[in-house]
């Protein structure tokens, strides 16, 4: 742990509400310890703003240990700063030098309207999940857990996909503003598991349809999402989703049936 402190120059996007015009504002933070986290540096700046009686910089954050998915920010143009397998809250100032200038902007995507400053509305991701990102297993129905055998490599691959924290970095990094990696991870997790196969076809059709309606773009294989994903989720899951979708588009047919009975 080092004792030398730094001075950091910041250019931060300030926007008071969804419809106001925003702009980059210059700030300077002194005595930044290399052991501080990136968000702790912003805490220090916000304390300065409080003492000046100014509105603090609004940014999303919660667990500060890289798992809740709440923190966001484009740091020098990269989601979460672009460090491998790292969320913004886990970026530490020892990665920067005295006198550096850092540009901080919100995640930008058509489907993520800005709320204030660096805070955006990522509610569209919940809507994608609502369209089928679940297994219909109401409480009380379950059989014994070991009645379903799942080969370890399959369980491990499902876990790789399930590690998604729903931060939206994939959307913010994609030139098309696509949420295909987010959605692919969920479709793939559930398609891999036997419990999820029952609803697999309907799931992929509904989720993809909803995704497109919400203003997310399509995937054109830039793979920026994979490069930026703080949980290292592979675009192979997009490929699996595409296969599921294609299969469903050809084969899925649900006859309209009345549910009434004697």
């Amino acid at each position, binding site marked *: *742990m080092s004792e030398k402190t730094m001075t950091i120059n910041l250019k931060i996007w300030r926007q*008071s509400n969804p419809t106001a015009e925003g702009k980059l504002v210059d700030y300077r933070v002194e005595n930044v*310890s*290399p*052991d501080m986290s990136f*968000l702790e540096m912003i*805490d220090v700046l916000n*304390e300065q703003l*409080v*003492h000046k*009686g*100014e*509105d*603090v910089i*609004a940014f*999303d954050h*919660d*667990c*500060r*240990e890289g*798992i*809740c*998915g*709440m923190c966001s920010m484009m740091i020098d143009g990269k989601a979460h700063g672009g460090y491998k397998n*790292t969320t913004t809250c*886990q970026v*530490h100032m*020892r990665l920067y030098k005295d006198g550096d200038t850092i540009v901080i902007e919100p995640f930008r995507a058509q489907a993520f309207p800005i*709320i*204030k400053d660096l*805070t955006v*509305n*990522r509610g569209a991701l*919940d809507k994608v999940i*609502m369209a089928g*990102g*679940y*297994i*219909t*297993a109401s*409480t009380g129905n*379950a*059989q014994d*857990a*070991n009645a379903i*055998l*799942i*080969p*370890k490599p399959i*369980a*491990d691959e*499902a*876990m790789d996909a*399930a*590690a998604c924290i*729903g931060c939206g970095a994939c959307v913010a990094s994609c030139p098309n503003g696509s949420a295909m990696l987010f959605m692919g991870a969920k479709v793939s*997790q559930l398609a891999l*598991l036997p*419990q*999820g196969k029952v609803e697999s076809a309907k799931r992929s059709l509904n989720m993809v349809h909803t995704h497109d309606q919400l203003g997310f773009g399509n995937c054109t294989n830039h793979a920026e999402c994979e490069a930026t994903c703080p949980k290292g989720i592979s675009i192979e899951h997009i490929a699996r989703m595409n296969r599921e979708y294609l299969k469903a588009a050809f084969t899925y047919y649900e006859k309209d049936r009345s549910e009434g009975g004697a």
Partner: protein
Amino acid sequence: MPINLESKIPAGDLKDKWSKHKFDSKLVNPANKRKYTVIVVGTGLAGGSAAATLAELGYNVLSFCIQDTPRRAHSIAAQGGINGAKNYPNDGDSVKRLFYDTIKGGDYRSREANVYRLAEVSTNIIDQMVAQGVPFAREYGGYLDNRSFGGSQVSRTFYARGQTGQQLLLGAYSGMMKMVSKGKIKMFNRREMMDLVTINGKARGIIVRNLITGELERYAADAVLLCTGGYGNVYFLSTNAMTSNASAAWRCYKRGAAFANPCFTQIHPTCIPVHGDYQSKLTLMSESLRNDGRVWVPKAVGDKRKPEQIPEEERDYYLERIYPSYGNLAPRDVSSRQAKYRYDEGKGVGPTGQAVYLDFRDAIARDSLATIAGRYGNLFEMYQRITGDDPYKTPMMIYPAVHYTMGGLWVDYNLQSTIPGLHVLGEANFSDHGANRLGASALMQGLADGYFVVPNTLSHYLASNVLEKVTTDDSAFKDAEQAVVLQTSRLLNTKGKRSVDEFHKALGHIMWEKVGMARNEKGLKEAIESIRKLREEFWQDVKVPGDTGNFNLELHKAARVADFLELGELMALDALERKESCGGHFREEYQTPDGEALRDDDHFAHAAVWEYTGTNSSPIRHKEELVFENLKLATRSYK
């Protein structure tokens, strides 16, 4: 109305109580369920599983979360695993053994009947989560894998890498999203509960702040479920998330819900130490590391050499020395206390002295670097990201940190508080963990309460009470809202000189020093005085910029800290009155000659239940005596 602490534990054999109780409970018929509305505050494992299950049953659910989506509730950060008495490894586990381990781990300060039920439904939870697609770790044959955790001699912990909490929460969340899409759950994100509304003595609604617009909103219902987690952030630094707070529970306390055992807090032994006053939170390093890491400090006071330069004979592997049979896997409360003793002796390491080493040198030499990397690689990476040190080359530095609160709102066997209609689930209640929680049991309790307990007990409440129709135009809603408006305006108009965080840090310092790992009468009395003084200063000198009409983060924090400043005092008072040591509550006056906790079962085998009596009068301490019919009270020993 006098406070009613009837536990409503059903009569009969321990193992039959829950099934008998379910049969004796009244039901709401399927066609009538849609006539009821239930408010669920919080979307962690308790709130998420309750909301999904109640909606599946047909109730109309209004669900509220403080984050931008229910999937971010702090249950997500749990790493290690979830206990379930499945006995898949055939190593002698049973419902009874999980029950026994939990009561003993809690140092005999929890209710037998509640804990037995928890152990009983633990197996259903594992089934349910697998059905929902939680990718638990598996063996090559496809069966579920188990590992062991502190405080038990069997392997009953199910896990999904180091992200078990995340996977379980996403399971509960996906169940919720299914019911949101069907219109049975109405989801309200970025809302914070500001008050509880009671009408004719029953919980009938809540006042919330829309955190984005700043507006106050009113919601009415037939019952309220509080699933808002614990209050560890009263210490400012803890492993809790930044928005984890006690306000919802505290407002309920001030509306008449009794608060039980507020001084029971869990301080987890293996966290990354504090390294500066700018620090915002502490990060846990999983308990599992103690399977291979050896904890030590230098034998000499003030030895500032690098750890690699300290020869073997000059190191004190103090857990192995003091607890030869449990060694580095001594339970959380005991390990934390021993780390503190080393600091007190001047043998702590690192720049602040508030750290001890957790060393993998011998494990790497024994099992190879690749093996250790396979077990803990992700944790080592996380450690290096935060501290800049490489634990493969130099020992980790760790120190205890506030992690969990066993105390909470008092509930009966039905999880109902002393306010009819207000049910409290998960960490927010006090019911199952006594004075110390075992690892991998928090996830189990949250899901037990939400999936399996409250859906049964709530129907009994709804079916056996006449609930007249109420609307949000009722004067009770108006009055409650007005109180929030007044408090908000006071916070904004104090226009003092000190920020909210400055007050929160000052409170945290008092709590950690005097209501932390070791407590004594003098310190607790000083803490109460200091907190009162700090609270007065807060209301005269706090500075909250901005106004109510928008996303004002400083205002949100200010309201939470105002409540922490009251809760902290109650915690100190509870610690002062509990003149014994048990679990995480260690009173220096009550210890054995070798520094272990000394319980006083003759005078303190009870839950201390606090009743609020007003701003300017002292709360009243009631007792719920704990009856042990199935287990004998015994001294915990790990030597």
